[in-house]
């Protein structure tokens, strides 16, 4: 069983922002963090990840900078901005509000008396 792409699609940006909010990171490490946070249940497609980075950069949620690795290739790090943190907070509020309602909508049965 894997989590359906349709279900998670709208949350890709929030997932990335949540990870970057805990510290600057780069592509491969973010994809690893996603695997770990989901307990190996979800793997974000790399193409989706790099597209999301670009989208977030354009919208001002993150900025990027090059690392100063002394050996090997230089990594491109992403850093969450104040706007990104605000948007993350908003997304979290939205989610908190929506999750219980969606859960009720898709699992609850209508008891007699609920509908007049």
């Amino acid at each position: 069983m894997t989590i359906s792409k349709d279900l998670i699609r709208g949350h890709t940006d929030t997932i990335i922002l949540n990870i970057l909010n805990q510290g600057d990171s780069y592509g491969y490490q973010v994809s690893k963090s996603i695997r770990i946070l989901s307990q190996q249940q979800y793997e974000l497609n790399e193409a989706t990840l790099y597209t999301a980075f670009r989208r977030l950069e354009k919208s001002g949620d993150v900025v990027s900078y090059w690392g100063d690795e002394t050996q090997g290739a230089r990594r491109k790090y992403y850093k969450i901005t104040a706007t990104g943190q605000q948007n993350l907070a908003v997304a979290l509020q939205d989610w908190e509000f929506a999750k219980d309602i969606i859960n009720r909508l898709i699992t609850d049965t209508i008891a007699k008396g609920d509908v007049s």
Partner: protein
Amino acid sequence: MTSIEMEIRTRLDVIFSKYKPNSELTEFKEELVADLMEAYQDFAKQDKSHDEALDDTFDQLGDIDTVLRELSQKTSADESSQGDKKKKTPFFDISDDGFHVGNLHINNQGVRLGDDIVIDGKHDKVQFGEWLHVDHDGARVGKKYYQFNDDMTMNHAQFENDKNTTAPHWATAHHNVQIPISDKKFIFNYKDTAINFYTNDKTDLITVDEYFSRDNARYFAAVTEDDDRVLISQGEQPLLFHVRSLINIGLPKNFEKGRIKILNHSGRITAHDLILDTFDIVIHAGSFKGHNLKAKNAIWEINSGSIQVDELSLQGAEIFNKSGSIKLKNATIPHAKISVTSGSIQADNFVGGGQFSVEAGPLRLRVSKLTDDLKLRANASTVRVTAPETQDFNFDLSVRSGVINMERNTNINFEKNVDNYKRGVYGQNPEFTIDAAIDSGTIKIY
């Protein structure tokens, strides 16, 4: 620059070469080099050889063409009209990416006409305007939604927890049949449902629990018996209104002589913790997922769908999948015969031997131990085999058009060593042969 970095750069150059260079693409390439080098280090811990780890690294990267296309078009769009996000594509265009006329697009993902008519092969989705949507989860016609039998209780957690064989929340009818075991063959004939096999707590009874979303005795299965078989066949299925159903089939412990055959036209079959003599499966469209299965004989036939099994031990197995994937993990099959027409085969930690064939699609084997010759056949494919670490073997590899890479350098003796044919011995005392012949593509032995 290390040699790994050089090789990663060279491979990226090939991928990037299709696109008109610009600064965004160059920057993206630099980003990928660092990320891929780290991914390589991780694979190198698990894989034995350098090339194997490199191939796995790029496999994991997947298809970045969409990103590249976007980045390469960004500047050309910026030059012409600022801030225009819409991709500029010519009215008529044929390339490796597909075929486009106006808003009709045909490529390896499927067929799309505007946003209204979509046939998406990659995500198995069909859509005609607002009126009809069909995908894995269900079908919507007009305002009616039909969910496919893909019950949420059928998740991986169930494999760890047998007790999850209780009634699903939507069930309004429950039908239970108990059938004493015998040495007859038990044939379950279902057309369209979700079926789950598990080991029950009985000693000599097969238990069948059927759950339905609507109550009607006509839906219940019927059991008939003759001299050499017991047939359990699905009850009536209403044509007009879909009835959701789930069938839990419990097999008794110590049923090593049991011979089971299951037919399901479309739907999903799961099975876990079974020890049987024979376990045959026929699925027209759907999936089979198994965990911890052991049988002397197994014939699995799937027309389109997927097979995914972890911890499998079969004496003899014939597995066919016309279109779809076969994924085996920790499998011991001394005499395997596994074939896919279009799709992929992957076996990790494989012990055994036999024949694997694909018409079109990748074949990836990580062999821990050979107990027989390995015969690999493919038409158009990438065949990648990790040979056992400590076992010597003969090899005989041929490609009509393409390349062969024998990634081992020491301890190897070639009898014949040309670009498209390599034969020889690895080690001193080979017992078995890895024999691979494909029409076009790549063979790699690690």
